[in-house]
Every structure is written in structure tokens, then in C-alpha cells.
């Protein structure tokens, strides 16, 4: 790469960064570049080939948590663009099967994700509210536990596994600042998170739709 190319890129980046202070009054949250977001809400996961196989093997769903949680750290890079490191708690289910003797067999799992998100946002004049769309990708972790008896001994054996897969997440949302540093957020979207796979080749999808509301904190150097 020639020197003039490097110089052109440096000038372009300087112009891009330098444009922000001109309209600083309209920057979201007064241009604070760091954010911390915590959300709590609900989601829905459909039955899958994996859960239907559990039913075929005599398991009955005992608990299907529909609550979802989200925690994210945001860094605003440009005026309308930020990146986030975000973790989401997704599908959590517990299934039981009568063992006929002694305690019931039990199988349970929970999925959580750790993603990098890109967020494009548009603040309103005055910078008190913004709407955004974001897209994320990253690993999905699904620890599972099977409790069953494999001998005539009365105690159950516990078999733990950790399935690491991937997830894709698309969200739309909004955020309104209630003070200089504290805001209220809401977001909804869809997560595709193929997770557990059984020996028969059936795969579970731990994602699905989600709706979240929560609080955010804004701090850091003004842009």
C-alpha cells in the first residue's frame, strides 16, 4: 500500500470522527461513548425434533422457562454506530421421566450466548431518545445434565455435557435517557441458536423470539 493511500484513509477517518462535535447537541446521551445495558424479559422457543424425541422416549416437560436476560457493554465508535459485547440467557428446560422405581430420570439444559454485536442507531433531536437495529454473532453454550440410574444402586448418576455451537441474533430497539447517565431500553428480535444434538441426529433450537426491557447506564468520554 502506497503512502498516499494510507494518508487518504487517515484523512477520511479524521473527517468522520471530526464531524461529530459539530452536531454535539444532537448526539445521543450527550455523546457519552460507553454504555452498560441490563435487560429482562421473555422469549418463546418452539418444539423441535429434539424435544419430540424426548417425548418419544417417555420424557415429559416439567419446566420450560420463558424468561430471558441480557447484559451488554457498548462502545460508540462513530456518531451512529457502536459495537457491543453482549451475553443473553436463552432457552432453559427440564424434562422428567418416571423410572418406575426410585427417583425419576431427569434431563435439563440451559443456553447462554456471548456475542459481538454491531448497532446502527439514530438519535432524535436533542439526543434524549434513539432507535436502533443491531446484529450479533458468537458462540452459544449449552450445558446439559442427565440424572438416571444405570445400576441397581438406589442413587442416580449425573452425566454433564457442554455443547458449544453458534448463534445469530437480530434485534431492533429503542432507548430513552431518563437522566444524564441512566436510561430505559426495550428491544425485541429473533435468535437462531442451534444447540443440543442427540445421537439420532435431532437438533434443538434454543433461540426464538425475544422481548426485553431494562436499564442502561451511560458514561465515559464525550465524543
Amino acid at each position, binding site marked *: 500500500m502506497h503512502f498516499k493511500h494510507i494518508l487518504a484513509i487517515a484523512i477520511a477517518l479524521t473527517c468522520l470522527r471530526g464531524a461529530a462535535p459539530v452536531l454535539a447537541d444532537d448526539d445521543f446521551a450527550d455523546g457519552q461513548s460507553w454504555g452498560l445495558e441490563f435487560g429482562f424479559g421473555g422469549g418463546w422457543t418452539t418444539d423441535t425434533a429434539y424435544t419430540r*424425541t*424426548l417425548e*418419544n*422416549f*417417555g420424557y415429559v416437560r416439567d419446566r420450560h422457562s420463558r424468561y430471558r436476560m441480557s447484559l451488554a457493554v457498548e462502545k460508540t465508535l462513530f456518531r451512529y454506530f457502536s459495537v457491543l459485547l453482549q451475553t443473553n440467557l436463552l432457552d432453559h428446560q427440564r424434562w422428567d*421421566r*418416571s*423410572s*418406575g*422405581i426410585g427417583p425419576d*430420570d431427569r*434431563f435439563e439444559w440451559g443456553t447462554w450466548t456471548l456475542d459481538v454485536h454491531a448497532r446502527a442507531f439514530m438519535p432524535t433531536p436533542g439526543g434524549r431518545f434513539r432507535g436502533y437495529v443491531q446484529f450479533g454473532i458468537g458462540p452459544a453454550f449449552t450445558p446439559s445434565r*442427565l440424572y*438416571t*440410574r*444405570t*445400576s*441397581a444402586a438406589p442413587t442416580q*448418576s449425573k*452425566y454433564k455435557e457442554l455443547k458449544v455451537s453458534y448463534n445469530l441474533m437480530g434485534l431492533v430497539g429503542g432507548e430513552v435517557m431518563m437522566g444524564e447517565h441512566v436510561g430505559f431500553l426495550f428491544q425485541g428480535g429473533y435468535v437462531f441458536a442451534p444447540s443440543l444434538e*442427540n*445421537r*439420532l441426529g*435431532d437438533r434443538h433450537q434454543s433461540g426464538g423470539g425475544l422481548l426485553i426491557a431494562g436499564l442502561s447506564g451511560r458514561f465515559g468520554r464525550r465524543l
Partner: protein
Amino acid sequence: MNRITYLFILPVLLATMGSYCEVDVIDDPGFQFWCGETLCAWTVEQGAVRKVQTWHEHDYAVELVGSPVVISQKAAEGFSSCVRIELIADVETSAMVTVEIDYGGDGSVDWTSPVSREGYRSLSWEIRPGSEANSDSVFIVRKSGEGRAVLTQLRAYERCYGGM
């Protein structure tokens, strides 16, 4: 007493009589207990069986290998009233598998039903055997053909109401 009084008394009576329960009459209905290469709770009377993994590497089933194969188990309890039998299996029609019960253990089969369920599907029956089904009764699974036959659960239980 009028009807309103009965409406109040009935729930109280049901609550004091106890709750619904199930009494299993077969041990190890999930074919989970293995003593080496054979089942602990079932007797292999003829042929051979093999432990196989199912949906999970630690969830086991029994495969009836070759033909003929007969496995049996003496009932753990007497079951004179209504008994529900639930089978989950992957059985080809050519395996010619039957579930049988010998009430009283006198050597004669008193109840039998063919099994043909491919792809780990469930099958259930409800039977009312009467007083001859005492604790000497024997549950039998018989395979007469060469097809594949894997059983993952054979459960038999009586319904009861605790405290009655």
C-alpha cells in the same frame, strides 16, 4: 344435606383421602440396569441381548439379538385391578415381537399383544386381569423373527389413590 353442602364436603374428602399415585409392577422398566453384558432385573430365557445407546450415550435400551429371543420378569407386585402397560420400542415388523403375560406363573400365556413400532414410538394397553394376576405373574417379551428389535421402556403400573 343439600347439594351445596356436598360441594363443600367433596373436596375436603378427596383431600383427606390422599393423592393419585402409580404402583409399578415391573422392575427396571427402562432397561437401564446392566450387570455386565446382561440385564440385572430381567431373565434372558432364550437367545441373546445387547446393551445399546439411544438418544443419549447414557440412556440405554435392550436389543434382542437374533431369533428366537425370550426375556421375562416376575411381577414385583400383584395387580388384580386395571393395569396400564406402556412400551417404547424400535421394532421392525419382521422381528415378530410380542409382549405376553402369564397370570399366576403357571406356564400358560394369558394375554399377548404383537409389537410393531419403528423409530422409537410408544404403544400402550390397559388390561383388567382379575384375581388370578398375583405376584407370581410373569411378564414376557418374545422375538420370533430376524428383524431389528430394540426396547427402551416396558412399564406396567397400577393406578392407586394414597390413603384410600
